[in-house]
C-alpha cells in the first residue's frame, strides 16, 4: 500500500468487540452446541468444553487479535501480508497465508445460502406458510421442497429459496460496501443486542413451558434441561468426546479462519487486544451455553420426549433448527411471533458472521492491490456470487458438505496450527508476550505464557493428527460418497484448487508489483 493511504478503522472499542462476537456467534451456537452437548455426556461435556476454552480457544483468540493488530501496523489486513511481516526472511510463508483468505471465502459461498433459509423461514413464520404442519415428516418435506431437493405440495422448485438468497446476498454486499465503521460495526452494534433480546424472550418462553401434556408428566421442562445437563461421566473416558468439545470451541470462536486477523488489523498499535479478545469470547459463550443450551433441546424434549429427541439430535443440526423447532413453536400460543424470533435470531447470527467472512478477501484487494473499497466490493460481489451457485444448485449432491469440510474444517485447523507456530516459535514467545500486552487493559496470568507456548500448539497438533486419522481420511478418499455424487465432489475439489491457486497467484503478483514499484514490503 502506498504511503499516506488511510486504512479503514473501528469507530469504538465496543464496535470491534461486537463485530468479533458477531463473527463468532453463528448458527452453530444455537444448533450445533446443544446437539453436541446432549449427545456427548450432557453436563459432563462441559468439563472438556471448558478445558478447551481456556487452553485452546482463548489463547488462539489472543494470538489472532495480536497478529492482526501487528500486521495492521504494516498496512496488511490479511494473512499473507501478516505472515510475511512476522517472518520476512522466508519468501514462502506468505503463500501459507493464502489459507486465511481462501477459508473465509469458501465458507462465505455456502454460508450465505444457509443464512438465506433463516431469512425465508422468518418470513414463513409470519405468513404462516408452515403453521399447519404438525408432523416431522411433513416439516422435513417442507424443508426439502424449499431447498429444491424435491417437488411437493409446498414448493415447486428452487425459486423461493433463490429469491431469499438474492436478498440475503444483496444485504451482505450492502453492509460490506459501507466498510468497517460505516457498515460492519453499525450492523453488529444493533444486531447483537437484538439477537440477545430475541434469545432471552425465547429462553423465558422455554423455561415457562412447565408440563404441556399432563398425561405425560415426565415430559416437563426440568427434565428437558436434565436431558442436556445431567452428566454422564463415563463419556469422559472417550477420546471422541474430548475431540468433539475441542472442535466445538474451535468452531464457535471463529478462530483459525482469518477473520479475526483482518478485524484486528483495523486497530491502532496502542489499542488493547487482551481485554477486547476476552470480552468477545465471553460474549460468544453467553450466546452459546446460556441461550443456545436453553432453547432448542429443552423445548424439543418437552414435546417429543427422550427417545425421539436423541434420534433428532443425531440426525443433524438442520433438522433441529428447521424441522424440530418450528414444530415445537407451532404448538405454542403466538407461534408466528415466536417462530419469527427464532429464525430472525438465526438470521442475525448468520449475517454478522457472513459479513466477517467477506472482509478478508476485500481487505486483501484493498491493502495489497491498492484497490478502493467500492471496486474491491464490486469484484468480490461478482466473483463470490458466481461461486455461490454450485452450493445452491447442487446442495443435494454433497457440494455444501464438501465446501464445509475443506473451508470450514480442514484448512481451519491447519491455519490455526500454522499461525500459532509462527507466533510462538518464529516471532518468539518473549516478543509475542510483549506484543500481546502492548496497550493492554489487563495482564494475562503468567501461566498463559507456558500454555500459549506449549499446550496450545500441542493441543492443535493432537486435534490435527486425530481428526486426520479418524475422520478426515475417509472424507478425503470419498468413502461415504455414492457413485452418483462423486463427479460433483471431484468437480468441487477441482474448483477449490483453482480458487486456492488463483489466490496464491494474486499474492505473487501483488508482491512482484510492489517490488517493481520499489516499495519495501514489511
Amino acid at each position, binding site marked *: 500500500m502506498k504511503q499516506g493511504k488511510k486504512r479503514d478503522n473501528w469507530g469504538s*472499542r465496543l464496535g470491534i468487540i461486537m463485530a468479533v462476537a458477531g463473527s463468532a456467534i453463528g448458527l452453530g451456537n444455537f444448533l450445533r452446541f446443544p446437539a453436541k452437548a446432549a449427545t456427548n455426556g450432557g453436563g459432563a461435556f462441559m468439563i472438556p468444553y471448558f478445558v478447551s476454552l481456556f487452553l485452546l480457544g482463548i489463547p488462539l483468540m489472543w494470538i489472532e487479535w495480536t497478529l492482526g493488530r501487528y500486521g495492521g501496523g504494516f498496512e496488511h489486513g490479511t494473512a499473507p501480508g501478516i505472515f510475511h511481516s512476522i517472518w520476512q526472511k522466508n519468501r514462502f510463508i506468505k503463500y501459507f497465508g493464502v489459507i486465511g483468505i481462501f477459508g473465509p471465502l469458501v465458507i462465505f459461498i455456502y454460508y450465505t445460502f444457509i443464512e438465506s433459509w433463516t431469512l425465508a423461514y422468518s418470513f414463513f413464520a409470519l405468513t404462516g406458510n408452515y403453521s399447519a404442519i404438525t408432523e416431522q415428516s411433513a416439516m422435513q418435506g417442507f424443508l426439502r421442497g424449499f431447498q429444491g431437493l424435491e417437488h411437493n405440495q409446498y414448493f415447486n422448485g428452487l425459486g423461493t429459496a433463490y429469491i431469499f438468497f438474492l436478498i440475503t446476498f444483496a444485504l451482505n454486499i450492502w453492509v460490506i460496501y459501507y466498510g468497517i465503521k460505516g457498515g460492519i460495526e453499525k450492523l453488529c452494534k444493533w444486531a447483537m443486542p437484538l439477537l440477545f433480546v430475541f434469545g432471552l424472550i425465547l429462553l423465558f418462553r422455554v423455561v415457562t413451558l412447565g408440563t404441556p401434556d399432563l398425561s405425560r408428566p415426565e415430559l416437563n421442562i426440568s427434565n428437558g434441561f436434565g436431558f442436556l445437563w445431567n452428566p454422564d461421566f463415563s463419556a469422559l473416558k472417550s477420546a471422541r468426546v474430548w475431540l468433539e468439545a475441542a472442535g466445538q470451541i474451535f468452531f464457535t470462536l471463529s478462530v483459525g479462519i482469518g477473520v479475526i486477523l483482518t478485524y484486528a488489523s483495523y486497530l491502532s498499535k496502542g489499542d488493547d487486544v487482551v481485554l477486547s479478545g476476552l470480552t468477545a469470547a465471553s460474549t460468544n459463550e453467553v450466546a452459546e451455553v*446460556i441461550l443456545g443450551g436453553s432453547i432448542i433441546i429443552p423445548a424439543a424434549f418437552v414435546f417429543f420426549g427422550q427417545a425421539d429427541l436423541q434420534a433428532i439430535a443425531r440426525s443433524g443440526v438442520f433438522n433441529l433448527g428447521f424441522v424440530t423447532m418450528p414444530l415445537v413453536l407451532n404448538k405454542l400460543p403466538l407461534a408466528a411471533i415466536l417462530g419469527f424470533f427464532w429464525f430472525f435470531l438465526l438470521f442475525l447470527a448468520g449475517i454478522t458472521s457472513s459479513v466477517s467472512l467477506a472482509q478478508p478477501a476485500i481487505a486483501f484487494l484493498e491493502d495489497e492491490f491498492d484497490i478502493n473499497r467500492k471496486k474491491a466490493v464490486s469484484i468480490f460481489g461478482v466473483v463470490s456470487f458466481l461461486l455461490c451457485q454450485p452450493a445452491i444448485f447442487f446442495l443435494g449432491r454433497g457440494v455444501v458438505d464438501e465446501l464445509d469440510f475443506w473451508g470450514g474444517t480442514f484448512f481451519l485447523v491447519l491455519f490455526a496450527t500454522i499461525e500459532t507456530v509462527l507466533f510462538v516459535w518464529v516471532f518468539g514467545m518473549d516478543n509475542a508476550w510483549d506484543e500481546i500486552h502492548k496497550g493492554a487493559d489487563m495482564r494475562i496470568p503468567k501461566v498463559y505464557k507456558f500454555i500459549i507456548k506449549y499446550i496450545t500448539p500441542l493441543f492443535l497438533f493432537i486435534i490435527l493428527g486425530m481428526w486426520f486419522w479418524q475422520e478426515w481420511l475417509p472424507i478425503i478418499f470419498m468413502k461415504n460418497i455414492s457413485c452418483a455424487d462423486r463427479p460433483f465432489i471431484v468437480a468441487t475439489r477441482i474448483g477449490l484448487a483453482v480458487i486456492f491457486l488463483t489466490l496464491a497467484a494474486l499474492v505473487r503478483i501483488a508482491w512482484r508489483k510492489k517490488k517493481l514499484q520499489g516499495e519495501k514490503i514489511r
Partner: protein
Amino acid sequence: MNFSGWVFLTVSWGIIIGLASLCFIKVFSKKEVK
C-alpha cells in the same frame, strides 16, 4: 434434572456470566478506542 445436572448448569452459567460481566465492567471503565 438431577442434582448433578443442576450443579453443572449452575457452575457453567456462573463461570460464563462471571467472566462476561467482569470483562464488560472493565471495558466500560476503560478508555475507548479511537
